[in-house]
């Protein structure tokens, strides 16, 4: 690449270097609670710089960026929608939103490839006997990965928003593998083709295949594993963006994309570790199904607890541990949780929260929700701390959590969640489980905890039950 020097080109490249540094520092700062917010702003500043300088200084074959009014209009529309959506979304719907935005990025990468392919092919038509070159590879990979990321994110969004159910079928696994194979084979086929100007059907077929694979890839994965999937798709989009960077010799896109690609992969692996499963197991081994039938629950009975009994039990305890799960998020009961916490604390009851790393729909989801309800940091115990204190705990209240407190993870080697670290709530003196019904959790397996001698159930919507419980405690 011979580049003719102009001050504009140099300024652009400097801005890209600065943007890359800001991305790296931003990401670094994001990993410490005190500096996280600043880190986010730094990364945003880097992005703004890179976008502005691209519009002002980018040149291709001596042509400045044209269509500026249209670009600004598109930027304005995107900003308005993105801003409003991000401001309006409920805290509980955060995971869906991240998935949605991720899908947009993937679609953007795929569209770029769709537009670049015809140009690339026309440029080399007549000179080359095949399309085995870096540019074609970057275009095809950008389209494939971006497309998979887009379709997958939309399915993940649908699942988290409870618009799409799980389809669990072992057949899907093979269909899946087959699609992946077809997708890869088709990419190779395109690269070995003789380039012909204006022959672009392959790129649409490849895009279509990528979309289908994105759907079949996420479809069989259970809702409980969506955080892992979103994190994985997040790193996919990063790689797709990096393909664009490779294509345009654009260092900001390259570093930004790869940085997200690699850190996203690590984050994905960390999440899998928290569930004690391998990434492969998450992707191909859809949760639930066959082995889950091993527990017979028909002959066991559950004990219910009345609201007033629960209120008395809580008020006269010394140590109470609240274990929240997705049900809390769905019922929007985090503020009530805090209200009860304050109330009990005023009665000299020590209230803490036991947070399982994958409780909710995303790692850290519970922390975010409880932070929203002004629950102080130091009350949140991580899983090991919570387990260490369990024997001294008088009452554990499980609110809308299921799989993360399932003893089967430790007792039943045939269970699909065997080996996953869980919060051992059954070691506490009393357990109150708040649940809407006896329905199974996302892993679709029975929970022996509900039949445990120390467990009593409080059925009903978490929010309604909490309200009544608070009223009862107040009346004591």
């Amino acid at each position, binding site marked *: 690449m011979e580049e003719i020097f102009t001050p504009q080109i140099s300024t652009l490249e400097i801005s890209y270097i600065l943007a890359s540094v800001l991305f790296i520092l931003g990401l670094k700062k994001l990993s410490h*609670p005190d500096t996280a917010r600043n880190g986010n702003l730094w990364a945003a500043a880097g992005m703004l710089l890179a976008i502005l300088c691209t519009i002002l200084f980018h040149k291709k074959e001596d042509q400045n960026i044209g269509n500026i009014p249209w670009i600004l209009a598109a930027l304005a529309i995107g900003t308005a929608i993105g801003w409003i959506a991000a401001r309006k979304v409920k805290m509980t719907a955060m995971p869906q939103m991240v998935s949605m935005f991720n899908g947009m990025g993937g679609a953007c990468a795929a569209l770029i490839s769709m537009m*670049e392919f015809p140009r690339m092919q026309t440029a080399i038509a007549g000179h080359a006997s095949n399309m085995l070159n870096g540019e074609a590879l970057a275009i095809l990979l950008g389209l494939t990965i971006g497309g998979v990321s887009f379709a997958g994110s939309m399915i993940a969004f649908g699942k988290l928003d409870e618009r799409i159910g799980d389809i669990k079928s072992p057949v899907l696994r093979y269909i899946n593998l087959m699609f992946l194979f077809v997708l890869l084979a088709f990419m190779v086929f395109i690269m070995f083709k003789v380039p012909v100007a204006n022959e672009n059907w392959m790129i649409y077929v490849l895009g279509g295949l990528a979309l289908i694979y994105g759907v079949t890839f996420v479809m069989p994965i259970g809702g409980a594993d969506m955080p892992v999937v979103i994190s994985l798709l997040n790193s996919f989009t990063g790689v797709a963006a990096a393909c664009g960077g490779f294509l345009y010799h654009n260092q900001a896109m390259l570093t930004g994309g790869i940085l997200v690609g690699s850190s996203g992969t690590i984050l994905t692996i960390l999440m899998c570790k928290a569930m004690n499963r391998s990434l492969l197991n998450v992707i191909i081994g859809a949760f639930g199904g066959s082995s889950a039938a091993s527990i017979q629950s028909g002959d066991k009975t559950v004990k219910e607890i009345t609201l007033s009994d629960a209120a008395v039990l809580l008020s006269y305890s010394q140590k109470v541990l609240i274990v929240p799960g997705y049900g809390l998020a769905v019922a929007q009961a985090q503020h009530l949780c805090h209200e009860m916490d304050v109330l009990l604390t005023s009665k000299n009851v020590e209230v803490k929260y036991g947070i399982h790393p994958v409780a909710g729909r995303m790692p850290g989801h519970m922390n975010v929700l409880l*932070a929203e309800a002004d629950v102080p940091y130091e009350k949140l115990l991580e899983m090991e701390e919570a387990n260490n204190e369990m024997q001294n705990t008088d009452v554990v209240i499980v609110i809308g959590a299921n799989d993360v407190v399932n003893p089967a993870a430790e007792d039943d080697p045939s269970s699909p969640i065997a080996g996953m670290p869980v919060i051992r709530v059954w070691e506490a003196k009393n357990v109150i489980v708040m649940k809407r019904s006896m329905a199974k959790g996302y892993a679709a397996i029975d929970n022996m905890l509900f039949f445990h001698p120390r467990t009593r159930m409080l059925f009903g919507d978490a929010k309604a039950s909490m309200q009544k419980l608070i009223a009862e405690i107040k009346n004591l």
Partner: protein
Amino acid sequence: MNEVLKFFLENREAIFIIILSVFLGIEVISHVPSVLHTPLMSGANAIHGVVIIGAIIVMGHAHDILPMVLGFVAVVLGTLNVVGGFVVTDRMLEMFRKKKTKK
């Protein structure tokens, strides 16, 4: 075989950046408390919105209707990714900070 070797020579700088960035990404992330996993994922999600630069470049050099329309859509989607991503992350982190000052 020669084509592969040539590919490495022609793109050695990009390959260098890719490899170093991979290690950097791993290094930067490896000590994150689980509290921050969601905001971090969301922040990283916003950063890969850098793909918008590509969309701007394509659109800036588009002349026909089809690339113009696709480019327009791409820029809109990319902006959604960037703006939405950063704003959502900020909202999450805002809550962490509010509490800190209260203490």
